[in-house]
């Protein structure tokens, strides 16, 4: 009898484990995640709570700005048409919001790596006066005053009391599920599809010129580099230098992933380039030879117009429509019902 009970429990365990893999998995040939899941084990209920919080402007002072205001699912979780992101009462910030994907493999957050752990990242926009203009204790008070959230906190944590820790961990859990590894490039790597000749040419050009910093399969090393962007004297953003105060980090910004680059214009930390053509133009003829320029970019990059077109064709194979249109990542309809009841 005991054996039957044990076997049944094991079966249920594997069943639930199998369902969790709907939310998180390690794509084939990818490195191990950096995020320590043992400190925040994934659960369906916590992910659901995190998703509600991600889409709810309750995180902002005047209830107008949510995470999705700057991180929209249809733009690979950045937003388009804005060089610099804006927050409450149309205040404009100093940088372009980055895309959000594959965060379990990301060793630091923000363009200058100011935030060292995914759990702590939401504190920055929540507290920034030009973004959400609020504070974590204010957010937690609001959540505790709503029956709607008390229910979800109870489901997630067995306790309806919201705390800073639980709120941030839930948002992390939702963000960790945003995995993008199903683009045409990925399918080619799995031998399920083939590049066109143009895309293959582009891939070779990419491997020759871009691969050191935009390393596969994440298409970034996660390190900081100066890619030759002339300093915008109005913004005067020195990037990583602000955090480390080390001169060699001046004008260095985090190397972003190139996945879903088709959807995430405008480009660079300040959104100065609207198109990929402009980006390639920068790398071939616009590099500013400053003291901290990445050594990989010291030699000129020479590309014919055809080669540029091929390279862009390759970059478009990094688009993952399944990621962009995944209903599990989008606006939760539960939020509508509670907002209308208020």
């Amino acid at each position, binding site marked *: 009898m005991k054996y039957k009970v044990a076997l049944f429990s094991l079966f249920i365990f594997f069943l639930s484990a199998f369902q969790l893999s709907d939310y998180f998995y390690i794509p084939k040939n990818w490195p191990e995640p950096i995020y*320590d899941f043992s*400190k*925040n084990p994934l659960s369906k209920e916590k992910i659901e709570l995190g998703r509600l919080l991600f889409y709810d402007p309750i995180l902002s002072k005047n209830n107008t700005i949510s995470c999705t205001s700057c991180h929209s699912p249809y733009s690979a979780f950045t937003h388009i048409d804005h060089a610099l992101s804006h927050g409450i009462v149309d205040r404009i910030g100093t940088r372009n919001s980055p895309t959000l994907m594959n965060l379990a493999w990301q060793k630091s957050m923000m363009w200058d790596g*100011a*935030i*060292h*752990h*995914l*759990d*702590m990242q939401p*504190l*920055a926009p*929540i*507290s*920034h006066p030009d973004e959400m203009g609020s*504070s*974590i*204790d204010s957010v*937690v008070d609001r959540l505790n005053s709503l029956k709607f959230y008390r229910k979800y906190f109870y489901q997630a944590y067995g306790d309806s009391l919201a*705390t*800073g*820790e*639980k709120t*941030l*961990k839930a948002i*992390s859990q939702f963000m960790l599920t945003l995995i993008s590894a199903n683009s045409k490039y990925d399918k080619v790597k799995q031998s399920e599809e083939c590049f066109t000749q143009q895309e293959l040419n582009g891939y070779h050009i990419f491997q020759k010129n871009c691969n050191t910093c935009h390393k596969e399969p994440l298409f970034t090393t996660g390190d900081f580099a100066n890619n030759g962007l002339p300093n915008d004297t109005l913004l005067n953003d020195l990037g990583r230098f602000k*955090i480390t105060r080390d001169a060699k980090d001046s004008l260095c910004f985090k190397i972003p992933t190139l996945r879903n680059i088709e959807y995430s214009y405008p480009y660079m930390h300040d959104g100065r380039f609207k198109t990929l053509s402009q980006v390639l133009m920068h790398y071939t003829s616009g590099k500013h030879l400053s003291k901290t320029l990445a050594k990989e970019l010291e030699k000129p990059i020479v590309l014919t117009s055809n080669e540029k077109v091929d390279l862009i064709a390759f970059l478009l194979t990094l688009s993952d429509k399944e990621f962009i249109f995944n209903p599990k990542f989008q606006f939760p309809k539960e939020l509508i019902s509670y907002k209308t009841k208020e």
Partner: protein
Amino acid sequence: MKSLLLLIIPLLVVFRSQSKRLINLPIAFQLVLGNFSLLLNDTSNLPQTNENLNIETLKFYISKVQLYQIDSLAFEEQLSFHLIDISNPSSLKFSIKIPKNLSYNRIQFYMGIDSITNVSGVMGGDLDPIKGMYWTWQSGYINFKLEGKSKLCKTKNNLFQFHLGGYQIPNSCLQTINLEALEEHPIFIKMDIEKFIKSIDLVKLNHIMSPSAEAVKLSEYLVTCFSK
């Protein structure tokens, strides 16, 4: 079934007797300004000095509490993080569970949060960011927060704000405090903030808000504030 009981019962006996041999050791902080006992609602009775000093916020972390017997470690508290907050009098005292007949003659603790905890993600209790001791714009705990007013400060409302933090070399603000505590029960620790304030020229320096060499220097002065 019988063999299972034979295994469990001795374990239960051992556990029960272990728990019998643990006792609560209270550790209590007395926050003072010179000879004056400092509790936030008593600031109206602060001795009037030339600077007309007012303390409005005083919060700091105590962590990794250890008891030593001469040079050997006798006990270390697990998950040892305590936020001492003058506006929350009950936070000035906490207890650690130690074995009953433990011998110790010194107590040691960190003022601040160690680097590993700083990068381990969000935590709860006294480490919860809602306690207002975590920098939102650049990851890291604020080890020590002192805010108040002094006529010497040429700032709006004569405010001074010292937020000392930073966990990365060379700007690590973590300090170790080691004090005598010969078998004391409870252990009383005095923290005299006047020594810290007197070591700063409030005319020239009235705020610190980020990790820096200056923050490290000031945190070193704080070590001298702790005594028995």
